[in-house]
């Protein structure tokens, strides 16, 4: 039996004994997590330390595993959206939209241009919210709380926009098959415009606090680096991969939701270290803002949902007075909708990389199989390789720079 199959503490006990016999060095085990403020989520790392240097580590994940894939096999499509909220809960609208797009691809539904632009706006807002958290938390982990509290006001503003659009803030359950559940209110557009006006200056100020800050640079440059080849081999996508210098972005490689209509750049780093990841995320925020502005400017007139009465709930007033609407309402709620037998893999660029939904339908009202390709889960397996040989405090900053979100890790 391979040693790796043993629980890490047993494995390390042997190593500690051997090392002590060899030269009298006393190694020690540190249990980081499952609930530790520095891990930003519930996952455990058992680390073998020589003084402050990390010799080896093993991550234990699954503390908030909620069996979404199993639940999804027993729920009609519209009830699965609430599960996707809870994957990467820092940017739920991206997950929601990705799910609707997967279903629409499977059902063969054409989406009006206006809906696509609206979706692009919410997804980019969500990406900004995601990057706000990651970048500012990196500040916190290097000892600067101010920036974090400062930019969090603007995450709050993004949540207010979400609230205006869909009624919820964190776990948004946004949209329906074919579009949105309601037209965006004038307040939503007003808040969006206010955000676009105020936020860039705030973000610049935040960047000024950290990007050329001597302490921050010393703590992050050359720390937690990964080469481009390694990153690809480990399945990295998103900002973490781009920090290593690979310009892979699903929005460009496989444009969905009319991303091909917008002009934007893909920021890339060179070293793939914590500092590059920080800079790539910061630059991406500006690109997202650029996309939102273009989408607002170019947004065509039109309905806020596709005309698919088989899948899209009729207006409530009609349900009470109109027989046909009542029938559709009943059929949709009870999951009696036509579903073709097909298989779909739909990737989107989420906050942390390529989020993919692999959906197998068998003609019944529920998916036969639904698999989530969760970027965090795949990225996190490289963590111990990245931090091996570095200092404990560097491991903390590496963890926050990879932006591992426990919800997406465990699903």
């Amino acid at each position, binding site marked *: 039996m391979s040693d790796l199959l043993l629980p890490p503490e047993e494995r390390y006990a042997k190593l500690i004994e051997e090392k002590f016999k060899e030269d009298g060095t006393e190694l020690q085990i540190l249990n980081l997590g499952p609930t530790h403020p520095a891990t930003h989520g519930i996952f455990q790392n058992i680390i073998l330390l020589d003084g402050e240097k990390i010799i080896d580590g093993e991550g234990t994940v699954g503390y908030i595993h909620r069996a979404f894939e199993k639940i999804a096999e027993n729920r009609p499509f519209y009830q699965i959206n609430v599960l996707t909220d809870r994957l990467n809960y820092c940017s739920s609208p991206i997950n929601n939209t990705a799910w609707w797009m997967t279903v629409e691809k499977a059902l063969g539904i054409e989406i009006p241009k206006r809906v696509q632009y609206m979706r692009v706006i919410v997804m980019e807002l969500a990406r900004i919210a995601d990057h706000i958290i990651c970048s500012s938390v990196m500040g916190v982990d290097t000892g600067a709380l101010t920036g974090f509290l400062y930019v969090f006001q603007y995450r709050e503003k993004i949540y207010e926009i979400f609230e205006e659009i869909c009624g919820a803030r964190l776990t948004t359950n946004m949209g329906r098959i074919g579009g949105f559940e309601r037209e965006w209110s004038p307040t939503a557009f007003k808040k969006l415009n206010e955000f676009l006006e105020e936020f860039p200056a705030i973000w610049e100020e935040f960047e000024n606090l950290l990007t050329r800050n001597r302490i921050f640079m010393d703590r992050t440059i050359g720390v937690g680096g990964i080469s481009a080849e390694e990153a690809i081999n480990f399945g990295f996508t998103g900002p973490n991969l781009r920090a290593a210098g690979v310009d892979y972005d699903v929005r460009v490689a496989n444009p969905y939701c009319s991303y091909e209509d917008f002009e934007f750049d893909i920021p890339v780093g060179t070293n793939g270290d914590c500092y590059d990841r920080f800079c790539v995320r910061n630059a991406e925020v500006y690109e997202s803002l650029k996309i939102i502005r273009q989408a607002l400017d170019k947004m065509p007139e039109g309905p806020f949902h596709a005309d698919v009465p088989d899948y899209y709930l009729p207006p409530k007033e009609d349900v009470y007075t109109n027989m046909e609407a009542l029938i559709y309402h009943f059929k949709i709620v009870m999951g009696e909708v036509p579903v073709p037998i097909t298989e779909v893999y739909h990737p989107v660029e989420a906050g942390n990389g390529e989020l993919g939904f*692999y959906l197998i339908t068998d003609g019944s*009202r529920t998916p036969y199989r639904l698999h989530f390709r969760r970027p965090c889960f795949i990225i996190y397996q490289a963590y111990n390789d990245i931090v091996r040989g570095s200092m404990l405090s560097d491991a903390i900053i590496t963890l926050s720079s990879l932006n591992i979100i426990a919800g997406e890790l465990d699903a």
Partner: protein
Amino acid sequence: MSLDNSTIQKYLISNFGMSVSEFHEQHNMLVFEVTPDSIHDVVKFLKEDSTLNFNFLTDVCGVHYPDSEEDRQFTVVYHMHNWIDNVRIRIKTYLNAKNPVVDSMTDLFKSANWQERETYDFYGIKFKNHPQLKRILNMDEMVSFPLRKEFPLEDSGRTDKDDRFFGRTVHNS
């Protein structure tokens, strides 16, 4: 020069003959089947061949088909992506119900490590030559494989709620 699906198909058939089959396109993605004996060679070839260049293993997951014949009850599905020509493919390999074993891809792609552990954890599909094949999301003491179709979603003894009334069952019967 971009790589099209028929080229990939020709390349694979000329190199692997009968081991690769059932080529078809689904939503513009090439899908095909590989026998479990040659899946490792096929993935290695796809990765290392200078024309095919499938440099990225996007996803590995399992599927359970309890109603199929015994040799085809488990499926491992690989999604691969060629970033140079931007082509995606889906590879399936069907495994025997009694002894679902397939070669691990960890020597080709490090990203396969946890994904294969996850597949083992939920389906009991064993990956040969995997360095650390143990449970990952479920607890180590667990004996069943929860994503197999026979595993109930909830305690079947519950009488206080009936999913049929909420449109939550697989079929409406």
